[in-house]
């Protein structure tokens, strides 16, 4: 029985902390969120050299071969810094490839991801905002020898091979798609759902960035118009990808919740530090129970979410049958904790908390944004009971 991290994991945490403190201080996040720029690929290459994007890529494919517990160590620290790095999306793609792909496909994709050369993401949701196989309207159909790639007004023609597929549809809320080189697209095929590895540069793919409440969580719409792919783009059997997609989403939900407890932790620390130094009525405001009790309640909420996230990260690999339920509980708890902490961080700062220069709004936006990203608490609470009723 040991519910804590190993010395190696604590070293990893310290290393991540050092790099983020140097490279991505909140001042830089503030400047960046005023005018979001494309991802700093040089920084991504540097973190790749430290092993982050390849953290869960098997060693045979150039990664560190570590697990979800190690991943959330990095994600939690990234959350504290509100780092706009596409690690969560990348790990989701890595996981989907590991679960579904054959050796040739792994060899084609994983080493590039681990090296930082390829940024990858996964596209499941669509306009319906529903996570279910039936909700996926994007379709994959067999190519008819030749395909038209509709790119703008001009149509081009290309020769196709037997077994080629053509994708049509619109994916929405795709994390980090604007930086991605590789987009794993869920599409209906043979009365099921398949997952296709789509290069962002493939003819017919158009990525339109969304303007989001929290610019440190970039996302985009991905349009696929007659996108022709070789059969080798399909990961796993035709129509059989949904169970793997569900596992990827559960893992991603836990990863997102890990980022969120990191952010909540930093927001509470910021509020507490201010409450210690800001004086009113002749006393630090942190002496007043209206302030200190609120901080205490938030700590209870954050620590509780933290326990659920850590356990969920363990369950993903060591006890998969529990993963869905703990993903739901962890995300619900993390949503409530961060949403409230970001809000309280502004309130404890008073008027200054509402200024652009104060970092409080960065955490507030992260909280409001992530509360509903990958499912709001009410959806996750419903899932907790529904899962129990399924197994009963």
């Amino acid at each position, binding site marked *: *029985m*040991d519910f804590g991290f190993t010395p190696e994991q604590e070293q990893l945490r310290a290393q991540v902390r050092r790099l983020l403190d140097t490279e991505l201080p909140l001042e830089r996040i503030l400047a960046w969120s005023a005018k979001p720029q494309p991802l700093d690929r040089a920084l991504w290459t540097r973190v790749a050299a430290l092993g982050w994007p390849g953290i869960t890529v098997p060693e045979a494919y150039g990664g560190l071969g570590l697990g979800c517990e190690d991943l959330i160590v990095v994600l939690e620290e990234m959350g504290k810094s509100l780092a706009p790095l596409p690690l969560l999306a990348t790990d989701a793609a890595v996981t989907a490839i590991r679960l579904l792909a054959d050796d040739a496909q792994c060899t084609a994709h994983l080493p590039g991801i681990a090296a930082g050369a390829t940024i990858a993401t996964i596209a499941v949701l669509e306009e319906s905002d529903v996570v279910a196989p039936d909700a996926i309207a994007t379709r994959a159909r067999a190519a008819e020898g030749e395909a038209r790639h509709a790119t703008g007004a001009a149509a081009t023609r290309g020769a196709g091979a037997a077994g080629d597929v053509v994708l049509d549809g619109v994916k929405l809320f795709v994390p980090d798609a604007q930086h991605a080189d590789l987009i794993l697209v869920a599409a209906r095929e043979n009365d099921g759902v398949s997952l296709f590895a789509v290069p962002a540069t493939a003819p017919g793919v158009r990525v339109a960035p969304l303007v989001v409440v929290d610019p440190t969580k970039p996302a985009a719409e991905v349009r696929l118009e007659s996108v022709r792919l070789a059969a080798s783009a399909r990961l796993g059997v035709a129509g059989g990808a949904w169970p793997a997609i569900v596992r990827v989403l559960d893992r991603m939900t836990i990863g997102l919740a890990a980022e969120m407890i990191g952010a909540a932790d930093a927001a509470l620390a910021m509020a*507490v530090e201010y409450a210690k130094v800001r004086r009113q009525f002749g006393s630090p405001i942190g002496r007043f*129970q209206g302030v200190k009790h609120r901080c205490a309640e938030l700590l209870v909420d954050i*620590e509780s979410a933290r*326990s659920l996230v850590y356990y969920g990260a*363990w369950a993903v690999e060591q006890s998969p049958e529990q993963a869905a339920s703990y993903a739901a509980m962890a995300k*619900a708890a993390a949503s409530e904790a961060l949403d409230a902490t970001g809000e309280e961080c502004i309130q404890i700062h008073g008027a200054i908390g509402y200024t652009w220069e104060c970092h409080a709004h960065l955490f507030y936006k992260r909280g409001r944004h992530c509360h509903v990203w990958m499912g709001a608490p009410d959806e996750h609470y419903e899932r907790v009971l529904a899962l129990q009723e399924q197994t009963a």
Partner: protein
Amino acid sequence: MDFTFTTEEERFRADVRAFIRDHLPKGASGDGDLESGLASLPALYKWNQDLLAKGWVGFNWPREVGGGGGSLVAQMILKEEMARHKAPPLGLSYMGLAWVGPALIKYGTAAQKAEHIPPILRGDIQWCTGYSEPGAGSDLASLQCKAVRDGDDYVVNGQKIWTSLAMWSQWMILLVRTDPEAPKHLGITCLLVRIDTPGITVKPIKEMNGGAMFAEVFFEDVRVPLGNRLGAEGQGWDVTKDALANERSSIGDVWALKHRLEGLKDLAARCRRRGRRAIDDPGIRQRLARMETQVEAMRLNGLRFLTKQLRGEPLGAETSINKLIRARVEIESGRLARDIEGTYGVLAKKSPHAIDDGKWQRVMLGWPPYVIGGGTPNIQKNVIAERLLGLPHDAP
């Protein structure tokens, strides 16, 4: 992270389960709570003896005083299995085990240990705790009940209140002020007092649920031998504070709340609201799942704190986190049951048409001992804010 147990620990768990199968008293208390435990005291006496033979009363106390000398992990397993199977408490001398024994082990003389620990382990003696006073509740250290030395005795005058189980107890662990001039935490002394000492009057207090578990206790020139002082004069605050910090894995509470939650789901499957089962009502489902999430968080928080202890780091105010969660869940469970029952939620025990004979109304009226006792939620928040977040102390 590793949530598996060693072969030895698993063997211990199997041993506990076998023990429960063979020794659990028939018809004895349901969920290990204090009230039902006391109601069947005589029937539980053998349970205590059987536990004692295994070394499971005072499980983590040192062997030299008759305890089990058990490890933290084994203790967690023991409590978890007992609570999971709705076993009665791990020993009959409830306050003696929770408060008095740990203080005696750390501060008692050899004679005091020899006199008091064996009866606590056997369940022969009930203890109560003379801490709170009318003017000293959350601010316990401001207590005024005073003791003055006179020859070989202290002479105690004053009043205690909210003294749980006083009317069933033979002994009391009592905090008195021996030095009115000293800073408030340093002028306090701890005494061990026989309840039948002349000058002591116990007056039960009727509670909002109609029961009477606690009492007022009055002291009028009560003579307590000097030899009954626990620890040094002026050390009383430390003596009891250490006992407060002792043993806080909360795993037993977690399982009691898990049983409660199962009961609520079962209730929601039987009750109808607005033409459908309450369990199919989205609002009720949200509240059930949210409570489940909080109870799970409490369980896992406990495991994280246990890990800290196992790694040799001291545990401090973290335990207040679970105490606050427990308070939230205790209060919400009675309120949620009422809302599941709808208008039937007004029917109490013995009423015609009452659901489950008003069981959930007792829950709705029964949370204060668990929420107020040992420090109100507001006090827990002070503790968390000051000791975990480093915010300033709020007392002037």
